[in-house]
Structures are given as structure tokens and as C-alpha cells.
């Protein structure tokens, strides 16, 4: 089981992702430069957080045209798992691998804090090590995290179980006060229709051991390890 972590110019969570999947998970990982055309045999691709291309034009808009994205899209088309975290989620939306868009936080401020995320669907390759309804403490760090899509798309995402994570309060309720960025319907993470591409704004790779304040993100990578190695 090998993770491929894409480094775009401006990525800054690639090392965190590497630490999470190697030191904490015990899997193998390689960095994949954005100009490369080879996924080096990686089973799972991670598009990490950061500010690829300085967020020029729109977050993720330029990164989606990086040479490696052709291979990433092909990997996804063949059913290969792809994880987009924060900026990686923005890239996946811009690339059309996930529906919707991530817009400027409604509060107009960068939000960097630990939030509570409720698991909505524990029956995906990314979440089967969680329980539905489980509350996770995971950090966020973004200025453009407001998930936006038209009503039909939102209904379809909800109806087909593609909403994987929502922002919630300590009691597990999805409320406007618990929503750090104004995301529609409190959505923090979604999966593709085929179930092999996930995008989420919270950073599970920054919540993989007690030293970091939470280990709640590790099960996402454990879910993948169990499913992909099996």
C-alpha cells in the first residue's frame, strides 16, 4: 500500500500528510512533483493542503492544469482512491472530479482552529473505520472553505449519501454557529458518485496523534489502508 502525495508550488501540508501515512499509519509514501507524469505506482493519491499557485485567480484553479493532474484524473477514472484535503478539495472541485466549489468564508476571515466534524456516511472506503454520527475533533485552516453548489446538486449529494462530513457542535447538532465558513448545509466533506474521490476542508493529517491535540483523523487513513490492502 503506497500513498502518492502531490506537491504543487505552494503546497504546505504535503509533509504533514507524509508524516501521517508513514510514521503514524506505517504505510509507504512518495512525493509526486506537480510536473511529473508518473504516479510511481501509488495506490492512493493525496492532494494536500496549501496555497497552490498562490491561490491566483481562484483557489485550485491553476493547479488543476498541472501536468500530474492528467494522471490523477486517469487514476480516479479507473477507480483509484484520491483524497483532496483543504486546497486539495478546491483543486478537485476546479478539476470537475467533485461537484461544487469552495468560496471565500462567509466571515471573510481565515479560520484556523479545531472544529467538530460529524461523520455522515461511515460506509465509504475513507470512513468505514468511523461510526455514523461520530464526532471528530479535527483542525481547519482556510480562507476559502464555503462549500457551494446549486440546490439540485446538494439534494443529490445528500440523497445518495455523498455528504461524508458536516460541521457540528459539541452535541452533534449541525447549526449555523458550528459552521465555520458558511458552507451550504454545513458540508465539510463529500465523496464522488463512484465513491473513490473524497474532498474535505478539515485536515485529518493534522490530527493523527495525541501530541497534535487529536488523533481523530487517523481512522480516515486506516480505512484506506484496510480497504486498499485487502
Amino acid at each position, binding site marked *: 500500500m503506497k500513498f502518492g502525495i502531490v506537491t504543487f508550488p505552494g503546497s504546505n501540508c504535503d509533509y504533514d500528510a507524509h508524516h501521517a501515512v508513514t510514521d503514524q499509519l506505517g504505510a509507504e509514501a512518495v512525493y509526486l512533483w506537480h510536473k511529473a507524469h508518473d504516479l510511481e505506482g501509488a495506490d492512493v493519491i493525496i492532494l494536500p493542503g496549501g496555497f497552490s499557485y498562490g491561490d491566483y*485567480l*481562484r483557489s485550485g*484553479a491553476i493547479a488543476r*492544469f498541472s501536468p500530474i493532474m492528467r494522471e490523477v484524473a486517469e487514476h480516479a477514472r479507473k477507480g483509484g482512491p484520491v483524497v483532496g484535503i483543504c486546497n486539495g478539495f478546491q483543486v478537485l*472541485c*476546479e478539476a470537475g472530479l467533485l*461537484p*461544487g*466549489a469552495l*468560496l*471565500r*468564508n*462567509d*466571515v*471573510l476571515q481565515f479560520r484556523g482552529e479545531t472544529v467538530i466534524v460529524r461523520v455522515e456516511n461511515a460506509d465509504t472506503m475513507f470512513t468505514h473505520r468511523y461510526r455514523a454520527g461520530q464526532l471528530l475533533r479535527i483542525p481547519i485552516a482556510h480562507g476559502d472553505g*464555503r462549500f*457551494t*453548489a*446549486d440546490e439540485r446538486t446538494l439534494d443529490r449529494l445528500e440523497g445518495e449519501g455523498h455528504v461524508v462530513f458536516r460541521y457540528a457542535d459539541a452535541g452533534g447538532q449541525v447549526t449555523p454557529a458550528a459552521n465555520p465558513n*458558511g458552507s451550504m448545509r454545513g458540508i465539510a466533506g463529500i465523496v464522488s458518485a463512484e465513491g473513490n474521490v473524497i474532498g474535505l476542508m478539515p485536515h485529518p493529517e493534522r490530527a493523527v496523534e495525541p501530541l497534535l491535540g487529536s488523533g481523530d483523523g487517523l481512522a480516515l487513513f486506516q480505512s484506506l489502508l484496510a480497504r486498499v490492502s485487502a
Partner: protein
Amino acid sequence: MSRFRVSVHIVPRQGILDPQGKAVADALHTLGFRGVGDVRVGRHLVLDVDAASRQAAEQSVREMCERLLANPVTEDFEIAGVAAP
């Protein structure tokens, strides 16, 4: 082939919350510009494009907007002008 200067307006689509626009509207109200209603903050791009005709230059920029410059999910664009630079 001639060179044309094409300018494009890209704005958040009506109905999609534009917090920047709202913050600007609030500030304008504070300054006493009571008549200001909805404000949308977008981008204005100016592109120099080589094309066979004005129409071709405009068509080319339209395609750029559809494929990269505007987000089809959340933004609308309009060609604001085509001129010789």
C-alpha cells in the same frame, strides 16, 4: 492577424452569497452612501489577444472564460469591451 485588447468582468452569480460585496456595502453605508443596495465584488481582466477579427478575439476570450477564467458553478462573466490596444 491583429491584436485586440479584450476586457472581461467576472462577478459572483446572483443568489450566491458574496461576503466581500456585503462588507463593502456595509462600509459604504457607514460612510453615508445610503443609496447603495447590493454590491458584488468580482474581477476585471484585460487580455491582449491576437485574432483575425474582433469577433474572433471576443469568441476566444469567451472560451477562456468558460474553461478557466470564470468558475461555471459560481460566477458569471461578460465581455466588457474589445478594442485595438
